[in-house]
């Protein structure tokens, strides 16, 4: 089974972050108005919903219904934020705290496991290595429902549903992280260096901790970011797992507020709070993205340049 193409060490070398950044532009290249206009049109498309979200979260519920969606009417952002955090006894704080806890622990743990595992797959030979690796890779194709529902059933038998561990433990398993770190370790950690450490009498785990891990750091950060985002964005597993809203992450909580608002309908529904809550949960990630661009790009290229 080969869901994700195997990578050769040469490909990974090409993909190494910043290794071959081109200098300057190709000769004869000039900026052109036609492609710029084309890109501007799509800029409007990609930014419009976010602009809508930003503007809408400054409106009171009545103004939401009455005013044009893409322009301001009144300024109720402060009130909306206060109401969002006050609703249902401040449960929104709990959801933020949960989401942060799930994402930070899962990301840190998954990246560490992937770094160790990828290093093990890249730099050692052991029985059944290839079979194991292919099973891990093939697992990418398993639909989330096929996993989430039996996970829920198993966990409710051992009391892990309505328990943060029930969400965190499965989130630590990142097959794509293992794949990425294997490619990365193959090119970033020279085997000679490991051999040299061995000759000097260093233990394998000492070598990993003190030498290899430093070289693996850019890959580690990439897996960290990916797992962070995928845990932050995860909806299905927590939806299935948690029936107690004190364990909800933001995604499940906001979806619940939305269906409540839609069900009650009209001007009593808290649409303004769903909208403001959405804005609050989107802003931190967008800021993080803008500042961590470099990692995204280098990491993505390491995973996908060659088949």
């Amino acid at each position, binding site marked *: 089974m080969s869901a994700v193409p195997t990578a050769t060490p040469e490909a990974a070398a090409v993909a190494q972050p910043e290794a071959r950044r081109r200098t300057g532009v190709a000769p004869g290249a000039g900026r052109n108005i036609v492609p710029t206009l084309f890109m501007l049109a799509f800029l409007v498309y990609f930014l419009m919903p976010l602009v809508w979200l930003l503007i809408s979260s400054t409106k009171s519920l009545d103004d939401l219904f009455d005013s044009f969606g893409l322009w301001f009417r009144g300024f109720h952002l402060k009130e909306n934020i206060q109401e969002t955090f006050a609703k249902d006894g401040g449960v929104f704080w709990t959801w933020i705290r949960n989401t942060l806890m799930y994402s930070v622990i899962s990301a840190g743990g998954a990246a560490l496991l992937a770094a160790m595992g990828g290093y093990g797959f890249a730099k050692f030979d052991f029985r059944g290595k290839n079979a194991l690796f292919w099973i891990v890779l093939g697992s990418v194709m398993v*639909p989330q429902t*096929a996993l989430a529902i039996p996970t829920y059933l198993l966990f409710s038998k051992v009391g892990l549903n309505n328990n943060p561990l029930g969400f965190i433990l499965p989130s630590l398993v990142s097959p794509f992280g293992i794949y990425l770190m294997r490619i990365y370790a193959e090119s970033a950690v020279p085997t000679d260096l490991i051999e040299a450490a061995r000759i000097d009498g260093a233990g394998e785990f000492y070598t990993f901790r003190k030498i290899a891990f430093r070289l693996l750091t850019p890959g580690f950060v990439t897996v960290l970011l990916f797992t962070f985002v995928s845990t932050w964005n995860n909806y299905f597993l927590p939806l299935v797992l948690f029936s107690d809203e004190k364990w909800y992450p933001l*995604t499940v909580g906001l979806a619940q507020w939305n269906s409540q608002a*839609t069900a009650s309908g009209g001007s009593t529904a808290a649409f303004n709070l769903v909208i403001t809550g959405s804005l609050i949960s989107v802003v931190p990630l967008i800021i993080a993205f803008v500042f961590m661009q470099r990692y995204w790009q280098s990491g993505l290229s390491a995973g996908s*340049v060659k088949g």
Partner: protein
Amino acid sequence: MTEATVTSVAASTRRGRGRRKAGTHHGVKGFLFTAPFMVLFLGFFIAPLLYALYLSLFREQLVGGNAFVGLDNYKDGLSDPDFRSGVGRVALYMVVQVPIMLGLALVFALILDSAKVWFPRLFRVAFFMPYAVPTVIAALMWGYIYGRDFGPFADIADKLGTSPPNFLSEKLMLWSIANVATWTWTGYNMIIFYAALRAIPSELYEAAAVDGAGAVRIARYVKLPLLRPAILLCTIFSIIGSIQLFAEPQIFYAIAPQVIGKAYTPNLYVYNLAFSDQRLNYSAALSFLLGLIVFIFSILVMYMSRRQEETR
């Protein structure tokens, strides 16, 4: 798989690649490095999967309780009209949405790479930004934007004295969902393609430029063939994602329950079977069928890609 075959596979790859590797006495240590991951993988991936497989072979019966029924659940699934229409719907969605999304991502990446536009950094960041928005929130947002109460489209149509298209009607729903996915994922795919383009050594097409090839010809004949692996990877991930469509229809159910219903996509159907109807055995069998469909499509794409490469 027996131990003998596993070792022979490992041994043959070692020979085949001819790469210098650590001696076998380090092997156990290597396994220890992968062990923590493997333990969790077994516990939270393989175990639930095997449990689902086990469940799928049984049926809760009014008389006699839980009975082994072999592949009956699977047979029922294959002839279940709700499941089949859901699969048909996501297949149609996939055939339309994936090419549009990847085509746009590819065009954006090529344009950015050709350095022919102003503000390339702005475009790169802004197009990628929706990826930071959780699918659930993207669906909530677009749901409001499509709607008549808060949506700018409805406002504009009112001003013009017409009525806006009903984005959440039966006719348009699938494409409204496709738009949410396209909005969220195009930038992500663009960044993958762009990163792959940046990794191509520039000498490769500087030569073509010296020979008088324009940007479009260079893109078509030099860059595109080199992007093939990245395109294949993105295609497979997009296929997996579209067959598993869940969050968007589940969110839109709140605003358009009659259109979405209980079985709009196979995943939604499986979810409702398990949690509303308590038909766990049947839903387990359907999720396996769905996994099989994902697998078949992925293999098909890889096969076609290889065929195309051979005929070149």
